[in-house]
């Protein structure tokens, strides 16, 4: 920055000069978080991705509201229904409706064939009462975004088709999104604890501890992890409840993610330990804990947030892969991996390609997290360009 000039009486100045100095003034007094935010805002792709990620987490919160059928309601009579066509306009005005469906089994292929019945018009309505659920796990509610009139959505509304057991794929996708995205967050929180703890010890104390932790990380990174986690996941007892399995799987996948985070934390500790402000704090008589928490941690928190964001997609992929193999979450739990498991072989795909639809949100979320993390990483470095 330019050296400060001697103060001159303001009335002698031209108009633009103070404007520039106001902007500069703004930068020089801004906190690190403000600087980061300003830099992040310029990264348009990262901003858009953040919006996408937030949108998906809204689905996590409002999954029951967005689903219209009970995700566990199965019925052999509507097995493998293809996505339904929605008619948006009735007689020129906006009144969405669908046709009732009649299913017959094709005697040649044994495949159920569904034909729309134009005499049965079923109106689709917004904000209707449907199956009961607990909003945010406490408030009992039965309001849903969409529903049908005169019948139950379980029998008539199939926006993106049904699976083999005749369960509505859209509703299941909403619940699957909730599980998969929350597992990503919980898993990353756990690996963050491990990573910060071990990386911090490694960077702060150095010496033998550092060498040991670094070797452990190196060893863990050179082992093909999936077979190993498959082994661990397969050893989970069969009689565990859905919640127990959920947490066990979260712990298993968080064991994958911590090494990268530990690396980032250690690197930051090592480089900051040499900085003048740390020396100054030491000379001023600050205790070790105070130096760590009031001086060191705030100066690399942003880097950790960026690294954490970049670790979430890996968690989501791990959960999806394990569940896809049938070793992760098991039915009746619903996650993206569990949903994709139904599309595991070419026969299923050839007959019912819509079972592959859950792969679309998986791709979008992982991309969005990657872009957002990249943007955060760039923004976290105030001296980059």
């Amino acid at each position: 920055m330019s050296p400060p000039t001697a103060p001159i009486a303001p009335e002698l100045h031209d108009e633009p000069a103070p404007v520039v100095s106001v902007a500069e003034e703004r930068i020089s007094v801004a906190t690190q978080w403000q600087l980061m935010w300003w830099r992040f805002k310029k990264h348009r792709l990262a901003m858009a991705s953040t919006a996408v990620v937030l949108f998906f987490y809204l689905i996590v919160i409002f999954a029951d509201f967005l689903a219209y059928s009970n995700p566990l309601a199965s019925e052999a009579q509507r097995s493998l229904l293809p996505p339904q066509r929605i008619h948006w306009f009735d007689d020129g005005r906006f009144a969405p409706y669908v046709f009732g469906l009649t299913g017959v089994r094709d005697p040649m292929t044994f495949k159920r064939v569904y034909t729309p019945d134009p005499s049965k018009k079923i109106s689709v309505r917004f904000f209707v009462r449907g199956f009961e659920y607990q909003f945010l796990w406490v408030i009992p509610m039965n309001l849903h975004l969409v529903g049908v009139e005169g019948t139950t959505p379980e029998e008539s509304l199939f926006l993106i088709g049904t699976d083999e057991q005749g369960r509505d794929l859209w509703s299941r996708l909403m619940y699957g999104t909730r599980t998969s995205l929350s597992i990503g967050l919980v898993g990353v929180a756990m690996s963050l604890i491990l990573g910060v703890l071990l990386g911090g010890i490694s960077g702060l104390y150095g010496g033998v501890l550092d060498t040991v932790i670094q070797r452990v990380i190196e060893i863990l990174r050179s082992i093909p992890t999936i077979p190993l986690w498959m082994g661990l996941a397969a050893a989970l007892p069969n009689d565990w409840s859905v919640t127990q399995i959920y947490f066990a799987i979260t712990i298993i996948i968080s064991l994958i993610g911590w090494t990268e985070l530990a690396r980032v934390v250690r690197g930051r500790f090592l480089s900051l330990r040499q900085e003048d402000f740390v020396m100054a704090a030491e000379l001023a008589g600050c205790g070790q804990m105070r130096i760590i928490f009031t001086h060191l941690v705030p100066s690399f928190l942003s880097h950790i947030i960026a690294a954490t964001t970049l670790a979430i997609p890996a968690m989501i992929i791990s959960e999806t892969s394990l569940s896809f193999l049938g070793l992760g979450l098991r039915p009746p739990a619903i996650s993206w991996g569990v949903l994709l498991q139904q599309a595991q072989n070419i026969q299923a795909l050839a007959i019912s390609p819509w079972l592959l639809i859950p792969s679309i949100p998986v791709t979008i979320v992982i991309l969005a997290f990657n872009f957002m993390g990249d943007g955060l990483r760039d923004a976290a470095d105030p001296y980059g360009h």
Partner: protein
Amino acid sequence: MLAYLVRRLILAVLTVWAVSVLSFTVIQLPPGDYITSYIAQMSASGSFVSEQEANALRHQYGLDQPQYIRYIRWMGMVLHGNYGMALEYGRPVGEVIGDRLWLTMVVSVAAIIFTWFVALPIGIYSAVRQYSLGDYVATFVGFIGLAIPSFMLALILMYLGFTFFDLNIGGLFSDELAEAPWSLAKIWDLTKHLPLPALILGFAGTAQLVRIMRANLLDELSKPYVVTGRARGLAESRLILKYPVRVALNPFASTIGYLLPYVVSGSIIVSLVLSLPTVGPLLLKALVAQDMFLAGTIVLMLGTMTVIGTFISDLLLMWIDPRIRFEGRK
């Protein structure tokens, strides 16, 4: 150079040891032991094993010993090439695994070779023509590659192949050669089937490598020695390929180290989708049936092969990078 070699070797040995302990843990994890499963299997086939017999068997297999002795015994068995019995198949584990381990490695190495051959030219192109249309396309495809888990890519390609070309793209061999003994025709058949699994497995890694290559080369291109070469009238292609590309290649070799575990991991799931005759489907079946000797051996072998592969890539790095080769000579 020697110091580097010794350091990598020690780390490789340590890693193999860690893998063996972890594999042993996997074998030990499920409730009950080998004999419990054996008894269950025997009674399923109608024979009866008495308590005394069971205890005798336990003693014979050393199952009444503490964990660490059992680990040492197991390691002793493994080092003598005896991996125990695969319960479900009633045959020795080594026999059940057979060619599958090699095929896993063939598929993984093919994926890495694919990664190299695709990432190198695209990376160079993206750096030399920075911000061109091709660069943007490469970056975009690269991001897609990073975002799609390999098993999903396999599913999608399989679906597309089926609907548009009426092809079943799975497998590593044609039907008539699958059970045939090894011959030149079979190897040729394998070569023809390899590109697709290699593409699926290598896609994410390729995306990453293109980004690394691009960034490295961009750093090099702005250095004074490139300007000097250009000023002296060196042909552009020769100038770029002979000097900056060579320097930028270094991190390329070192990436194999972490690419290999990643690809081997991916091959397990992709093999399942594409029904490739690798250890992937076998491992899953073994885990579901809790056939732990088979599962543990597969985990151990995959880990060991990966470590050996990584060690070879270290040697390669040493060969490419004079800074490592001449380390300590000063």
